[in-house]
C-alpha cells in the first residue's frame, strides 16, 4: 500500500514537472517583457522605469541557459518559484500573488463548496429518483430535461438567473459579496442556484446512467431473488458499486473548488480566485495566471492520486501492485 502511494506520488511529481515545462513554454516564450512592463506601469512611463520593472520581475534573465551562472535563468527561476510556492508579484499591479490567492480562496470556497456538495447530493438523489422510475414518463421527461439543461450555455443560465430571479422576481440580490455570514447567504443564494442549475443536467444524467447500469447487473437480480427490498438493494449493493464512477467524477472536480468558477464569480462580483483569473486574463497578468494554472494542475494531480487510492478502499478488485 505504502509502496503504491509512494510510486503513484512520484509519478505525479513527474507530471508536475511536465506541467511546469509546458507553462514555461506558454508564458515565457512569446510575451515581450518590456510590453508587459508598459501595460503594468502605464503608458506614460519612461523607458528606464520599464526596464527597472523588467529587472524587478526577473524577466531580463537568459531564457534557457546562462553560461556564466547556470542557476540564473528564467527557466530555473520559474521552476524554483513554482515548486517553492513563491509566486512573486503580479505582472499587472505588483500585488503579492500568494497573498491574493489566500484572500481569494475564502470567497471562492464559499461559492463552490455549496455548489459542489449540494450538487453531488442533489445529483445523486434526483438521479436515484429518476432511475427508480425508469421506463416511466418521469424517467423519460427527466432525461429530456437533462439534455435540455446540458444544451444551454452557462452564459444564459447566468443572464437568465440574474434577469429573472434577481431583477424580475427579486428573490435575491443580483450580485455582490459580503464577508459577514448572515448577509453572505443572501448574496450567495443566486450564484449557487445558477451554478447548481447549470451542472445538474449533466450530473443527473451521468449518475442515472451509472445507477441504471448497476441496477441492471446480475448481482442485483441475485439480491432480489434472495428477498432484498428495493431500498436495501440501493443502499447496500448498488450505491457501493456505483461509488467507483461517482468517485471519479467527484474527486476530479475537487480542484475546481479552489480555483473557483471564472464566469460565476465575475458575473456575481465575488472576489474569489475565478474572478482573479478573469482579471489576469484581461490584464495579461501572466505571473498570476501561471500561478493559478499551476495550482489548478497541482490540485488535479493530487486529486487523481487520491482517487486512485480511494479506488483501493472502495473496490476490492483493485489490487495494489
Amino acid at each position, binding site marked *: 500500500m505504502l509502496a503504491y502511494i509512494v510510486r503513484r506520488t512520484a509519478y505525479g511529481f513527474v*507530471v508536475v514537472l511536465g*506541467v511546469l515545462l509546458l507553462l514555461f513554454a506558454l508564458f515565457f516564450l512569446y510575451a515581450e517583457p518590456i510590453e508587459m512592463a508598459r501595460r503594468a506601469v502605464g503608458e506614460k512611463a519612461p523607458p528606464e522605469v520599464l526596464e527597472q520593472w523588467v529587472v524587478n520581475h526577473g524577466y531580463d534573465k537568459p531564457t534557457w541557459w546562462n553560461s556564466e551562472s547556470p542557476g540564473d535563468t528564467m527557466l530555473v527561476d520559474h521552476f524554483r518559484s513554482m515548486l517553492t510556492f513563491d509566486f512573486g508579484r503580479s505582472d499587472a499591479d505588483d500585488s503579492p500573488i500568494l497573498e491574493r490567492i489566500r484572500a481569494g480562496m475564502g470567497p471562492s470556497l464559499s461559492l463552490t463548496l455549496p455548489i459542489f456538495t449540494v450538487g453531488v447530493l442533489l445529483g445523486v438523489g434526483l438521479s436515484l429518483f429518476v432511475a427508480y422510475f425508469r421506463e416511466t414518463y418521469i424517467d423519460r421527461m427527466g432525461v429530456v430535461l437533462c439534455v*435540455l439543461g446540458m*444544451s444551454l450555455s452557462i452564459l444564459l443560465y447566468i443572464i437568465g438567473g440574474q434577469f429573472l430571479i434577481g431583477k424580475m422576481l427579486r428573490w435575491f440580490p443580483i450580485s455582490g459579496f459580503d464577508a459577514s455570514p448572515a448577509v453572505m447567504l443572501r448574496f450567495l443564494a443566486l450564484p449557487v442556484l445558477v451554478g447548481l442549475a447549470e451542472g445538474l443536467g449533466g450530473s443527473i444524467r451521468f449518475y442515472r446512467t451509472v445507477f441504471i447500469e448497476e441496477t441492471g447487473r446480475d448481482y442485483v437480480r441475485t439480491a432480489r431473488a434472495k428477498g432484498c427490498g428495493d431500498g436495501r438493494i440501493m443502499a447496500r449493493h448498488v450505491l457501493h458499486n456505483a461509488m467507483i464512477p461517482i468517485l471519479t467524477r467527484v474527486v476530479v472536480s475537487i480542484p475546481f473548488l479552489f480555483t473557483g468558477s471564472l464566469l460565476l464569480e465575475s458575473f456575481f462580483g465575488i472576489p474569489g480566485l475565478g474572478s482573479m483569473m478573469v482579471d489576469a486574463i484581461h490584464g495579461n497578468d501572466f505571473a498570476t495566471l501561471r500561478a493559478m494554472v499551476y495550482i489548478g494542475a497541482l490540485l488535479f494531480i493530487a486529486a487523481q492520486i487520491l482517487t486512485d487510492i480511494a479506488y483501493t478502499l472502495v473496490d476490492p478488485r483493485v489490487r495494489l501492485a
Partner: protein
Amino acid sequence: MSLVEPHVLSNIVVAVLLGGAVAAFAIARRSDLWSQAGRELIGRRPIAIGAIALFVSVAMLDSVAWVGGGGAAGNVLEQSRPRSVVDRMFAPDFKEKSYSAPLADIEFYGGADLSHPGSHLLGTDILGRDVLHLTLKGARVALLIGGLTSLIVIPLALLMGISAGYFGGRIDDIVFFVVSTLASIPTLLLLIALIMVLGHGPVQVCVAMGVTGWVGFCRIVRGETFKLRELDYVQAARALGVSEIGIILRHILPNLMHLVVITFVLLFSGLVLSEAILAYLGIGIDGSWGQMIDQARDELARDPIIWWNLVAASTALFALILSVNFVGDAVRDILDPKTLGEGE
C-alpha cells in the same frame, strides 16, 4: 494579397466536403453495419437530424460566395466584396441606423422611420444590422468550431492513441505522460493560455481547442487498441506476417471507426459551448453566437427591453446543441453502448 482569396478557398472547402460526404455515404451504403445504423438513427431522431441538416445547409450556403452581382449602386466596396448565398438572400443595404424591433417600421430609439420597414424579421442590432442575417451567419462559425477542431482532434488522438496502445512500451509511456500532463491543467485555463500565445482568429481558436480536446479521446483509443491488439484475428494476422502498418490500417483502425463517430458527435456540442465562454472572455471567434450573446446580454437592461438579439443567438445555439446532444445519445446507443462511459 494571397494567391487564393478566402472566399475561393471556402468554395473549394465546400466542394471537398460535399464530395467527401457523398463518398462517405457511398462507402457506408456498402457496409451493412453502417447503413443499418444510419437508418436506425434517422428513425429514432428524425427531428434532431433534420435540424442539424438545416444548420449544415445554412452554413454551406454561407460558405459558397462569389464577387459581384449586386451591391448598392456606386459603392465599389460592396460590389468588390464576395457575398455568400446567405448574404444574397438579404439586400446589401439591409441596414438601419440603430435598433429596430422585429417587423417594426420605426427605429426603436429615436423613433425615426426605417429604410426597410417591417422587413427585419428578428429586428436589428445596435449597429442596425439585421439579426436574422447575423444569426444565420453564426451557423457557419459554429460548424467551423466543431468541424475544424474535430479535424485536429480526431487524427491526433488516433495517431497517438493507436501508437501507444499498439506498440506499448516506451511509446506508450511517452504518450501517457503527455496525456497526463495536458489533462492535469484545467481545460479552460489551458485554452486561454494557448489562445494568448497563438493569437486570435478562428484557426487559432480551433487549434487551441484541438490541443486541449484530444486528450480524452486519445485515452479511449489507447484502451480500445490495447484490447483489439490481443484479439485472435489480429494475432493471427501478425503470425501470418502482415506488416504492423497493414494490421493497424486493416484491423485496428476500422474497428475504431464507431468510436470516432461517437466522439465527433459528443465533442461537437462541448466545443461550441466553450466558444461561448471564450467569447465572454473576449477571445472568441468573430461572428459566433457566443459573441452575439455577449454583445446582447447587457441590452436586457434597456427600457423597453431589447431581447431579440439575445433570444435569436441563444435559440440558434441551443437548437444546434440540443439536436447534436439528442443525436449523440442515439448514436452512442446504436453504435456502442458500453465503451464510452458518459462524462469521462
